[in-house]
């Protein structure tokens, strides 16, 4: 009897203890503070060929920062597949990192949640002023007329990577400058189990980036001036169809690419299975896969006709990574200090060299390290012919909805089903219906 009673008492105590500890989570207050000035948590996006490579690149710099300021930075590199969800979860719970990387296209969406510290004039002054940054990069940091939700960290642009040897073997003189030339070159390359062009058909974000550029070239916008989704205009449908037709009609993309979502198209290019690749800042990735820099050339992404420029001559989105501060950080001063460090001229040179991206900081961009022919193409594109994706709160929903629609169109093309203007329009109509109602 005694033992039963002891057991019962023990059970009660245990359950009370569990209940108490489970409720004892941290309480999140709305605003930030400077309660723990000696520590920061940093979520970095995956920029290198693998997470380990990112850690190798970043850790020495974080150590440098600790030496200068005495603030220890805990690093976590978050894969792209998880990053947005992790940020949403952190936003919902109020338990997140102090400083984080965001894809620059998400800026307006995340800005709307109010979770990120706005970069007003006062905050910009603390990191050396807004005018240190290149304009095109600042164009992708949040909605028009609001203080930016983040500051630019790495800038990237799409370029056409082509295999020099394969081009020579197929008797192609130089990189194509228009889509017609690209298709012609692709047809010459597509034989003997090799293909003209690679694509990530099952990766919604990649699909959207390309569709966006094609839409610009057709003079179409995915959003109306007042921020409503408008995916089904004739020009938009034609633009998306032109992209999917590279597989469906022109047959220069291997059908298997329709299920690619893990950067397999980069491996295919590195291994000489495809002759061309449209990618942003691929150099570091190609190098890690054993493709030497002499083996490929870099050219601007083709346009419909003429040369890249503004308006219908746009040939890239403004790609890149922004650095944001979580509003309820408990080390706001330290976080700002860290942003200042990461965007300093010296760090910008080191980091952007490591990731083969372009510094969004003007002074760093003038460094000779970024004057190589490869970087010159990216720099020119960013300066003259790149446009930011729509800076609207629904941007990330747009990426998922339209990107998924294109994924399904690629699946149709791969299965040998016809991709017609009607089927493209139907897919985009469905995507538009998924968007939040206004």
């Amino acid at each position, binding site marked *: *009897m005694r033992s039963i009673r002891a057991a*019962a008492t023990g059970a009660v105590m245990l359950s009370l203890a569990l209940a108490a500890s489970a409720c004892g989570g941290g309480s999140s207050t709305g605003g930030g503070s400077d309660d723990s000035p000696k520590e920061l948590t940093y979520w970095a996006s995956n920029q290198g060929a693998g997470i380990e490579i990112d850690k190798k690149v970043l850790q020495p710099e974080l150590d440098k920062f600790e030496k200068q300021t005495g603030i220890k930075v805990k690093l976590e590199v978050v894969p792209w597949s998880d990053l947005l969800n992790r940020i949403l979860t952190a936003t919902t719970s109020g338990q997140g990192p102090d400083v984080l990387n965001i894809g620059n296209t998400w800026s307006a969406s995340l800005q709307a*949640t109010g979770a990120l510290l706005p970069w007003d004039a006062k905050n910009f002054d603390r990191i050396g002023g807004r005018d240190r940054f290149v304009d095109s990069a600042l164009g992708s940091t949040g909605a028009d007329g609001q203080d930016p939700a983040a500051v630019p960290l790495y800038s990237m642009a799409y370029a056409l990577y082509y295999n020099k040897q394969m081009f020579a073997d197929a008797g192609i003189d130089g990189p194509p400058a228009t889509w017609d030339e690209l298709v012609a070159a692709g047809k010459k390359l597509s034989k003997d189990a090799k293909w003209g062009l690679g694509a990530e058909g099952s990766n919604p974000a990649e699909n959207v980036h390309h569709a966006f550029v094609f839409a610009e070239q057709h003079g179409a916008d995915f959003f109306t001036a007042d921020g409503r989704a408008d995916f089904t205009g004739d020009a938009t449908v034609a633009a998306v169809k032109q992209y999917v037709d590279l597989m469906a009609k022109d047959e220069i993309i291997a059908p298997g690419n329709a299920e690619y979502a893990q950067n397999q198209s980069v491996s295919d290019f590195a291994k000489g299975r495809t002759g061309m690749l449209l990618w942003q800042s691929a150099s570091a990735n190609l190098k890690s896969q054993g493709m030497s820099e002499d083996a490929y050339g870099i050219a601007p992404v083709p346009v419909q006709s003429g040369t890249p420029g503004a308006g219908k001559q746009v040939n890239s989105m403004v790609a890149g990574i922004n650095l944001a501060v979580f509003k309820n950080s408990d080390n706001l001063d330290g976080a700002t200090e860290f942003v200042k460090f990461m965007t300093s001229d010296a760090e910008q040179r080191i980091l952007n060299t490591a990731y083969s991206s372009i510094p969004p900081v003007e002074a760093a961009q003038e460094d000779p390290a970024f004057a190589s022919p490869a970087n010159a193409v990216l720099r020119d594109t960013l300066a003259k012919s790149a446009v930011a994706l729509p800076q609207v709160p629904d941007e990330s929903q747009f990426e998922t909805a339209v990107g998924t629609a294109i*994924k399904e169109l690629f699946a149709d093309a791969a299965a040998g089903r016809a991709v017609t203007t009607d089927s493209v329009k139907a897919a985009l109509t469905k995507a538009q219906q998924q968007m939040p109602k206004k």
Partner: protein
Amino acid sequence: MSPDTAMTATAPAAEAAVRKGPPGAARGRRPGRIRRIGLPYLLLLPALLLELLVHLVPMVIGIVMSFKELTQFHIRDWGSAPWAGLDNYTVSVDFDAPVGKALLHSFLVTIAFTLLSVGLCWLIGTAAAICMQDGFRGRGLLRALFLVPYALPVYAAVITWVFMFQHDNGLVNHVLHDQLGITGKPSFWLIGDNSFAALLTVSVWKGWPFAFLIVMAGLQNIPRELYEAAALDGAGMIQQVRRITLPSLRPVNQVLVLVLFLWTFNDFNTPYVMFGKTAPEAADLVSVHIYQASFVTWNFGTGSAMSVLLLLFLLVVTGVYLALTSRGRRTAP
């Protein structure tokens, strides 16, 4: 907390009463009864509290969310999200509009998938268990081998299947197309219409060992004499299975089928690992569909409303199933 303190306070008296003699003693009866009734509840308390924390609290929050317009503008502070009334529900069940239509499609796909998967899991599991009933050399090894899919971590197992289903380098296409020449050209398994078959294959592969395990346990309780008597009466293998094995397994099967149904219907891991965040239409299971609906629109209110509807559906199915099967049990001889 008062029942507990009362418990400890009365306990010494009760103990004295027990020590004093038979439970007939007038003074000892009441505390003794309290203890008899109270003790089981007390022992259940930790489990109940944990259940409350782990299951009920999130469920209630989910139900509350389903009545709110919880979009990206409000996720930082749920309290500020405006009440949506029944809007989230009307959107979800308006089958003429795109959101409801997609949900209905996904629901039907899930029903078809679940029925097929549970049926096949049960059939293969039962057949295997019956075949393994009689001792033979290597039976233990085979039994262990059969259980491997069930023992493997889901992610590792499913990702291996994903590699096998790949279009260009996958094992499935290599065997079906390159070696056997069954298909005219390599098929796509992870996108397009075949994805349903691919998903079903993985689900059955993953699920049948559980059916096998449970049925095997159930078979141990069937007396051997029954089979011997039936054999003497001239019953063959098929008749023995039909007249003895299956009726004896009835109670086991009732639970097994219900559990398999609920697991399969709710399975999130398998489709998510196979297809990622956006499943192909043919394999758009409702769990991933709800996930996608929540994260595409960032409208967690609608996602929650869909989840609540799903919960209600499963409650109804479970309730009807239990009512039907328990009535059957009462009338059974």
